[in-house]
C-alpha cells in the first residue's frame, strides 16, 4: 500500500508490520476463543491441544505490535496519525514512551497486550484442565472484541498519507507528567486483572467437573493483584491531579475519577469475598457475581470516559463514535455473564450456618455495602446524563452529593472492617463484643471532643471521619495484640499481617482526607513582587516573577519565599503558568512544599496587572497521608503475591478458629 506513494527519507513499512501483527493476533484470539468449543459443535477440528500455542504466539504478536508503536514514537514517524497527534520532536524520550498509552488507540493496544501477556503467564504456570481452556477462551474472545474495535474504528497504525506533517501535534501538556508514566499502566493492569477474574468466573460456571471452591481459589491471587494495581492507579491518579490541575483538590468525584474508582470498590469486595469463599466454602455465588460485575463496570467506565457523554475536567480522548463500540462490548459481556450466572444460580446455593456476628457475616455485609457504594456512585455519575435524556434539562451531581453519600457508607464499612477480623468464624464472640463496645465509646468520645475543641460547629463528616480512623486504628491494634499474644511461630501469618497493613492504610488515608479537608487554610489574593502574606503561621513573600524556558514550554513563574513560625527561611516555591510551544495551551503547575505533617501549596492564577498575579496559597495538614495510605494498601496487596516457599505447607487454623461440625 505504501508503494503508491514515494517513501520519505527513513520511512519504512514498520507501521504496516505492526498492523499485520495486530491482524494476526486477532486471528489467534479467535482461534483461542473457539478451541474449547470446536468438538462440541460437531466439527472435527481439534484445536484444543494447540490452545497454549495460540496463546503464546498471540502474546508475542501483541507485544511486538506494542513495541513497534513505541519504536514509531521514538523515531518520530509522523506519517503515523497516532504518533503525529500525540508526540513531537521536542518531547523527552521518556514521555515519548509514555505517550504510547497517552491517547485512545495506544491505550487500548496497551490494554490488549497486557491482557494477552497475563493470559500467557497463566497458561505457562497452570495446567490444562477444562477450567483453564474456558478461561483462555473467554479472555481470547474479549481480546478479539477489543482488537476488532481497534482495527475497525481506531487503528493506532493508521497513516497520514500523503500529507505527512513535518512536526507532530504535541502530547497533551497536562499529560506531560510523571503521573502519565505510572497512573495509566497501573490502572490498565488492574482492569486486565478484573477481566481475568471475569474470565475465571465464566470458566467456573462452564466447567462443572471441579468444585467451585477450587476455581475461586485460583482466582484469588489475580483478584488481589488487580485490586493492588487499581489501588495504586487511583492513588497515583489523585496525586497527579493534586500536583497538576492547580486547584489543590485531590478528589473531585469527577465521572472520569469515578470510572476507575467504582471498579476499585467492586475489586475490594471481590477480594474479600474470595477470601471468605476459600475459608468457609460459601459465598461463591457472590464472588462470581462480583467478578462479572467488576469487569462489566470497567467497560462501562471506559465507555463513559472515551465516548465523551459525560463532561469531565480530565476529558481524555473523548469521541462519541467510540462510545458505541464500547457500549456494545459492555452489553455483550454483562448479558453473557449474568445470564450464565442466573442459569447456574440454583446450584450455587449453600445453606447459611453462621451467626449474625460471626466473621463471615460481617465480611459479607461489608462486601454488600461496598457494592451499594459502587452502584450508588455509578448512579450519581450517570444521573445527569439520564436526566437530560429523560427531561431535556441538565443538572449536576457533584462533590457535595457524593460526599454525603460516600462518607457515611465508608463509616459503616470501617465499622465492619475493624470488627470483622476480631470475630470468630461461624459463631459469635460475646467477650470481644464487650471490648468493642468500650472501644467504640472511647472513639466516639474522642471524636466528639476533637470536634468541640477544633471546629466551631458540629460537623457530621468530621465526626464520621475521625471516628472511622480511630476505630480502625484501635481495632487493628487490638487484633495485632491478640494475634501476637497467641503467636506460636507456626502457620502462615503473613496474610493476617498484610490484612492489618492494608486496613491501617485505609485508616491513614481517612486521617489524611479528614484533616486536609477540615483544617486546610487558604488565601486567594493578588500578589506582586515585594508583597507578603501570613497563613497558618508561615509567611509567604513574593520575591520576583521569572520567565523559564523549557524544551516544550515557556513558563512564567513566581518565586515565593516561605518563612516558618520563627521567621527562618524555609524554602522557595515556584508555582508556574506554563505555555506550551506546540499548541499554545496554558496550564498551571503548583509549587508545593511537602512535609510529613503538612503541605504548603501555591498556585498561580491569571495576571491581574503588570506586576500582580492572582495567587492561591493553601496550607494542607496531613494531606500526604492520603497517598501514603494508598501506597501501604497497594504494597500490602502485593506482598501477598510473593512466592511463599516457607508458608506453603501449613495453613494451620488460627487459634480463634472454631469449626463446628456441620
Amino acid at each position: 500500500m505504501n508503494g503508491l506513494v514515494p517513501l520519505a527519507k527513513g520511512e519504512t513499512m514498520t507501521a504496516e508490520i505492526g498492523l499485520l501483527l495486530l491482524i494476526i493476533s486477532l486471528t489467534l484470539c479467535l482461534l483461542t476463543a473457539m478451541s474449547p468449543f470446536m468438538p462440541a459443535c460437531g466439527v472435527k477440528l481439534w484445536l484444543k491441544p494447540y490452545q497454549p500455542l495460540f496463546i503464546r504466539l498471540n502474546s508475542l504478536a501483541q507485544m511486538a505490535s506494542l513495541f513497534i508503536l513505541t519504536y514509531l514514537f521514538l523515531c518520530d514517524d509522523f506519517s503515523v496519525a497516532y504518533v503525529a497527534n500525540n508526540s513531537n520532536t521536542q518531547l523527552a524520550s521518556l514521555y515519548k514512551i509514555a505517550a504510547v498509552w497517552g491517547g485512545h488507540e495506544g491505550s487500548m493496544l496497551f490494554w490488549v497486550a497486557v491482557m494477552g501477556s497475563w493470559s500467557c503467564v497463566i497458561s505457562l504456570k497452570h495446567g490444562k484442565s477444562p477450567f483453564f481452556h474456558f478461561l483462555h477462551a473467554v479472555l481470547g474472545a474479549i481480546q478479539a472484541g477489543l482488537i476488532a474495535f481497534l482495527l475497525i474504528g481506531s487503528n493506532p497504525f493508521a497513516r497520514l498519507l500523503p500529507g505527512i506533517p513535518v512536526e507532530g501535534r504535541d502530547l497533551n501538556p497536562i499529560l506531560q507528567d510523571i503521573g502519565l508514566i505510572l497512573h495509566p499502566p497501573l490502572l490498565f493492569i488492574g482492569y486486565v486483572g478484573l477481566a481475568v477474574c471475569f474470565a475465571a468466573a465464566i470458566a467456573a460456571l462452564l466447567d462443572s467437573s471441579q468444585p467451585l471452591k477450587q476455581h475461586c481459589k485460583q482466582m484469588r491471587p489475580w483478584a488481589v493483584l488487580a485490586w493492588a494495581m487499581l489501588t495504586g492507579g487511583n492513588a497515583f491518579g489523585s496525586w497527579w491531579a493534586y500536583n497538576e490541575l492547580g486547584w489543590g483538590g485531590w478528589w473531585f468525584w469527577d465521572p472520569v475519577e469515578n470510572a476507575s474508582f467504582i471498579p476499585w470498590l467492586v475489586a475490594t469486595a471481590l477480594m474479600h469475598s474470595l477470601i471468605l469463599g476459600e475459608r468457609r466454602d460459601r459465598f461463591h455465588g457472590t464472588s462470581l457475581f462480583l467478578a462479572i460485575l467488576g469487569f462489566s463496570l470497567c467497560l462501562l467506565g471506559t465507555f463513559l470516559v472515551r465516548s465523551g457523554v459525560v463532561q469531565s475536567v480530565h476529558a481524555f480522548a473523548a469521541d462519541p463514535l467510540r462510545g458505541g463500540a464500547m457500549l456494545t462490548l459492555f452489553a455483550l459481556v454483562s448479558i453473557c455473564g449474568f445470564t450464565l450466572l442466573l442459569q447456574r444460580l440454583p446450584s450455587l446455593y449453600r445453606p447459611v450456618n453462621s451467626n449474625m456476628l460471626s466473621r463471615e457475616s460481617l465480611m459479607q455485609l461489608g462486601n454488600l455495602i461496598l457494592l451499594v457504594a459502587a452502584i450508588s456512585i455509578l448512579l450519581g455519575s450517570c444521573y445527569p446524563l439520564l436526566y437530560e435524556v429523560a427531561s431535556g434539562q441538565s443538572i449536576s451531581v457533584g462533590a457535595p452529593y457524593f460526599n454525603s453519600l460516600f462518607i457515611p457508607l465508608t463509616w459503616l464499612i470501617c465499622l465492619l472492617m475493624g470488627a470483622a477480623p476480631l470475630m470468630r468464624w461461624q459463631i459469635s464472640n460475646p467477650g470481644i463484643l464487650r471490648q468493642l463496645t468500650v472501644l467504640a465509646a472511647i472513639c466516639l468520645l474522642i471524636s466528639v471532643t476533637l470536634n468541640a475543641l477544633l471546629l466551631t460547629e458540629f460537623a457530621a463528616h468530621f465526626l464520621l471521619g475521625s471516628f472511622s480512623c480511630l476505630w480502625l486504628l484501635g481495632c487493628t491494634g487490638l487484633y495485632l495484640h491478640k494475634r501476637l499474644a497467641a503467636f506460636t511461630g507456626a502457620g502462615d501469618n503473613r496474610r493476617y499481617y498484610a490484612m492489618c497493613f492494608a486496613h491501617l492504610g485505609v485508616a491513614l488515608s481517612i486521617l489524611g482526607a479528614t484533616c486536609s479537608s477540615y483544617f486546610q487554610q487558604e488565601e486567594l489574593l493578588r500578589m506582586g513582587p515585594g508583597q507578603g502574606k501570613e497563613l497558618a503561621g508561615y509567611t509567604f513573600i513574593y520575591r520576583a516573577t521569572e520567565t523559564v524556558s523549557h524544551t516544550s514550554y515557556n513558563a512564567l513563574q513566581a518565586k515565593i519565599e516561605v518563612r516558618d513560625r520563627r521567621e527562618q527561611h524555609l524554602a522557595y516555591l515556584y508555582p508556574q503558568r506554563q505555555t506550551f510551544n506546540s499548541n499554545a495551551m496554558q496550564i498551571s503547575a503548583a509549587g508545593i512544599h511537602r512535609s510529613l505533617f503538612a503541605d504548603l501549596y501555591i498556585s498561580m492564577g491569571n495576571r491581574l496587572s503588570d506586576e500582580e498575579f492572582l495567587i492561591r496559597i493553601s496550607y494542607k495538614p496531613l494531606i500526604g497521608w492520603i497517598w501514603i495510605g494508598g501506597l501501604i494498601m497497594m504494597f500490602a496487596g502485593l506482598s501477598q503475591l510473593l512466592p511463599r516457599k516457607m508458608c506453603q505447607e501449613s495453613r494451620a487454623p488460627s487459634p480463634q478458629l472454631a469449626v463446628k461440625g456441620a
Partner: protein
Amino acid sequence: MMKGSWILLLVVTLVTLLGPTRAQAPTETHGNPQWRTPAQLKHQAIEIAAGLRCPMSANQSLQDSQSPIANELKAEIYLQLEQGKTSDEIVDFMVARYGERIRYMPSLSAGTALLFFAPLCLLALAIFWYLRQAGSAASFNTSQEDRS
C-alpha cells in the same frame, strides 16, 4: 444486650446518613450578619463556592475554577453574604440566574428522587438481607442442635 447494641448501631447509621443532608442547610439562617466574623464569612463563602459549578469550565467548582466568571461569582457570593443573605438565598439567586445545572447538590424533586432514595433503598436491602440470613442461621443452628 447484643440486640440492643445492634439496634443502636442501626439508629446511629440512619441518623448519620440523614445528618449530612441536613448539614447542607445553612447553620445560621436566623443569625444576624453582624455576628459573623470575617473568618466565618470567608469560610461560608468558600463552602458555597465549593458547592456550585463554574458555568465556564468543564467540570470544576466555582471555588476551584480560575475563569473570569468564576472569580466574579465568588466576589458576588461574598458581597451577598456581607449584605446578610443566607446561603440558601445565594444559591437560589445563582440557580435563578444560571439554572439547576449550577448546583452540585441537586435539589430534591420528582426527577431526582431516584438519585436520593435508590442508595438508601439499596442499603436497606443489604441490611435486610443480613438480618434475614441471621434469622435463617438461627433456625438452621437450632435444627442442627435438635438433630444432634
